[in-house]
């Protein structure tokens, strides 16, 4: 009887794994979607999220000093809540884009770029380290506010920038014109998938 229950449980587990695998969205490995997604992640990081000006503004202690000296308690509270929200949004976006890039490198980079194993390994470690650092930073900010870990903010931003540079080399073959073409193709395939 116990054996029967055991085999039935294994069977159910195998069947559910098969079911979830079959229902999973097809990953865009080796397709134009993957390339476009990676290029967009890279430009979002480099042009949108990582520029020093933005990082400085989000985590600038000077604004807090100003609010402390100028505004009553409810405004100070509003300021801390708002900056915490923005800081978490920034960390979330950086982590998501890093994950997008990492997905491309895990699945598709080898189809397009000839990275040596050492670079691939170093990239893999960088991605993993960055995602972990983002998690740690998010935890620190959630618990202790936007100014909880200024060094970690700098470390995450610098590490993300370095990773982007290495990743950029593997996407360098994709110029603007090709990207436009691929974006259209990716949009077309997305439409046809419905």
């Amino acid at each position, binding site marked *: 009887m116990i054996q029967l229950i055991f085999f039935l449980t294994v069977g159910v587990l195998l069947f559910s794994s098969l079911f979830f695998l079959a229902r999973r969205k097809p990953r865009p490995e080796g397709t134009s979607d993957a390339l476009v997604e990676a290029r967009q992640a890279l430009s979002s990081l480099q042009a949108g999220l990582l520029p020093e000006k*933005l990082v400085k503004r*989000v985590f600038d202690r000077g604004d807090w000093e100003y609010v402390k000296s100028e505004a009553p308690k409810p405004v100070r509270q509003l300021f801390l809540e*708002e900056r915490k929200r923005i800081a978490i*949004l920034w960390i979330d976006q950086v982590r998501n884009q890093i994950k997008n890039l990492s997905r491309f490198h895990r699945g598709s980079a080898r189809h397009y770029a000839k990275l040596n194993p050492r670079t691939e390994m170093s990239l893999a470690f960088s991605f993993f380290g960055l995602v972990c650092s983002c998690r740690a930073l998010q935890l620190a900010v959630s618990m202790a506010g936007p100014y909880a870990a200024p060094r970690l903010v700098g470390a995450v931003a610098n590490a993300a920038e370095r990773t982007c540079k290495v990743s950029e080399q593997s996407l360098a073959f994709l110029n603007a014109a090709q990207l436009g073409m691929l974006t259209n193709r990716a949009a077309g395939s997305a439409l046809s998938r419905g």
Partner: protein
Amino acid sequence: MDVEQATADLRNRTLSEIPRSLDRLIYLASMRDYNTGLYYHDGLASRFTQDVACEALADCHREAFAHLVACSLRELVDQMEGYISSTHTSARDFVTAWKKLEPYRVAVPVETDPVTAQLLFSSFKIALAILEARLSSRPAQQVA
């Protein structure tokens, strides 16, 4: 090349008269058609072409936005005070209207990074709260 000339023309003739980034942002956003996202400026279009004028206005809009995002909170509050006094409306009415309508949300250039846009909206919200707190600590006759 034409776009660069048009941008320089816009900066020299029009934007040089508008020193604050906040005023520039609002002015340039008002040049944009909400239905199409295209910018219109008759004078600039007559000297160049409509397409070139549109691109020059979009460039200047992005530039004004970037300047404003880079401002510290203190600078943003100062810019808002300057802007309020240039509108000739009562500061209280202005703060109330901006808190309700949040007009700055439609002043953002297209394709702005969402985090950057959210940061600016949040800074506006805090700046308005600071101005409101200042107003309520002042006697009513000094406010208008």
